[in-house]
């Protein structure tokens, strides 16, 4: 990753806002004058299945998929889903993940692994792991539904991230329902402050 480009993987499950977040990052990158290629990968159900989004920012056109070990950043909406996609990470990858697990076990008798084990393995496989309590920060910002924006705020503070905070924030403002605008701005700040606090 550098000022000119980044391969970002956004992971979670259906209904958490993965696709919305991917498309906001993409729109912001185009607004900032980049070439962008972005994909969404999910199953047939509307909610609850694993969902992956990619955003590849370049100054030329590329394929929409991120190869193994090629992600510069993984933005996780759910910790287990980050681990599920860990083959995309390398020792250069920065991972930001929400800490709240979705422990759905039906309809198979699947036991959700221990959270600390999940985080330990992610940490081992990447350069830096930021664990963020998106839900708590979203509540602080005024509404649980602005949780994706907390993560976008955090993303904007990553060192060398090719799009400026201003451009991302304007893009968010233009693309969220008017009645949640204030909460989204607040959520963006919460996310950004969190990373800034960690960087100190």
């Amino acid at each position, binding site marked *: 990753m550098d000022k000119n480009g980044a391969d970002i993987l956004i992971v979670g499950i259906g209904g958490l806002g993965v696709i919305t977040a991917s498309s906001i990052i993409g729109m912001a990158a185009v607004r900032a004058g980049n070439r962008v290629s972005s994909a969404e990968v999910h199953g*047939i159900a509307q909610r609850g299945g694993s969902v992956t989004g990619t955003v590849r920012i370049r100054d030329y056109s590329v394929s*929409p998929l991120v190869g193994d070990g090629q992600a510069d950043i993984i933005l996780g909406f759910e910790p287990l889903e980050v681990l599920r996609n860990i083959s995309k990470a390398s020792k250069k990858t920065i991972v930001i993940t929400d800490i709240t697990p979705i422990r759905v076990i039906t309809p198979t008798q699947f036991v959700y692994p221990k959270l600390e084990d999940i985080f330990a393995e992610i940490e081992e496989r990447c350069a830096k792991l930021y664990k963020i309590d998106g839900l708590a920060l*979203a509540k602080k910002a005024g509404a649980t539904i602005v949780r994706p924006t907390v993560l976008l705020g955090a993303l904007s503070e990553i060192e060398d991230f090719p799009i400026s905070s201003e451009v991302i924030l304007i893009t968010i403002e233009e693309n969220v329902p008017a009645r949640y605008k204030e909460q989204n701005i607040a959520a963006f700040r919460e996310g950004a402050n969190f990373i800034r606090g960690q960087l100190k």
Partner: protein
Amino acid sequence: MEEILTGKEGERYFLLGNEAIVRGALEAGVDIAALYPGTPMSEIGDVFHALAKSVLDKGEEPSFYFEWSANEKVSLDICIAASLSGLRALCPMKAQGFNVAADSFLDYLTACNLVETDIKGGLVLVCADDPGGTSSVNEQDDRYIPILADVPMLEPSNCQEMKDMTKKAFGIAEELHLPVFLRTVNRVNLSRGDLLFGKLGVPRRKGDIKGVPISFDRTRCHANILKKMEKAKEFSEKSEYNRVIKFDGGKTGHRRIGVVASSISISYAEEIIRELGVEAELLALGFTNPLPEMLCKDFINKFDEIIVVEELSPFLETQFLKMAHEISDKTKIWGKETGHFPRAGEYRLETVAEPLAKVFGMDNPIPRREGSRIELVARALTNCPGCPHRNTYYAIKQVVPKDAIFANDQGCYLLGGLEPYKMSHAQYSMGASIGLACGFQQATGKPSIAFIGDSTFFHNGMSPLANAIHHKYDITVVVMDNGATAMSGFQLHPGTDRDAMGREAISIKIEDVVRGLGATFVEVVNPNNIAETREVFKRAIAHNGVSVVVSKALCRLMENREKRRKGLKITSYEIDQEKCDQCNICIDIYACPAFYEVDDKIYIDDVQCAGCGVCQEVCRVGAIREKGAENG
């Protein structure tokens, strides 16, 4: 989304591949678009629908007519008529949808191709294939259709081409007087990318048809089409979408290797060649039927070895093998026949990196990496939390005879075929459930039950039902009516009271249709009331002859969306741990995916719970109660 209509020429926008197709059609001045939704191309319709609404809201008239047709054959017939009347028509469908439309597509070509000018307005059929089959019943490779039908085919490889080729296709169709087959793949339909806009076109708006162009001389028609395809070949030779991309990565070897690719594989091949840092040439093919024979043969002639990169069948590869053979057989072709590339499954960068590196004799730039040490189970496919279909299945399961046979269909409800309900012995295509149930009943003599959705019923369910009633089959048909085509994104269908142009529509009631067809047992029930639903099913199964139960409740996602829009609260539910005796019925048998278990205790996930409250009826000890907190 507005920008698809209002966006300016020469500006760059970030769009979904499907949205880019709509822009392309608008730049071509499309008059009519019609489709039945299906992943991966439903958004094409969603965009037309939304644009029509936004124009109407401003008190203006949309420049196009759009409709959600009842099925793909209907949508194609509408578009063919528009084309015969001189208008430009766009007809998108998913690969399996083409099977429904094939009837009209293959027949009309020879029936309407006698006079040079028969097909006046450009007709573009968008066929969206789904390599990997994530949202489809198979990995059907529709590139063979244009060969079978003798029509030109274009294959976009990125969002820009989705727009440009759509626009171009209308022109080609009108010049050749043949429909153009725009074949896309899921990875391009559902990718977003930046693209430059062109100018909006001017629609013709009103068409007409004069004379009677039908002839029964099939041989002459066929010969006429073949003549047109000769001209198509010239177009293909000159097309800007068939081009050679040169890479000067610096690394050279003593072997001369060329790469051929089409569709999304162009972008993978391009990227890997760049990563390998080799000096190489890539023949990127976008006009793929007929292939530009001269261009291809020139390319073959230049190289000792050629690697063909394409998903699914060896469509290009076999044609390249033939061409190489016709030249001299000197050039070695690497591909699926040589075992370098798989025929099944969607490609990823890794799929292409390995064989390319191997043939070029270099290190693989994107080697596959290990997954996690901790074993992770896939999140099982299931209906959404609060989905009414789960309640239908839960209710019927309690009263159905042990030896019953279930025929399922295409829609969200097909997930009832998976764990833990497992109520599907067979399911594959739209509307097949009813014929299947009849067949099972006849073949086995066992109680047979068909599950079909509302949209699927209108799509292809009425004729098999007429057949079942007429022959007095003893089956039960459950129409799971959730008010929309939910699985592909809640699109409208003949049961809804509005159409895509925002006009009032006649809402056809499934129970009326069924009664009209002569069914003697017809009941409508709300599946969210499990006890009542159970009783209805008891009666339906006991009934001799075709019994139809319309299990009617709005898709939970739509209902909650509606509630949010009205500012109504959606309360989640929780478990009173004092009362819960860990019988696990809610998790193991009812299986709403909002439940989870930690240390033998059961909880409801706040974020997942849709607040339907139906699990209260499922719990025998009354341990489930409303939470009172808002569920964002």
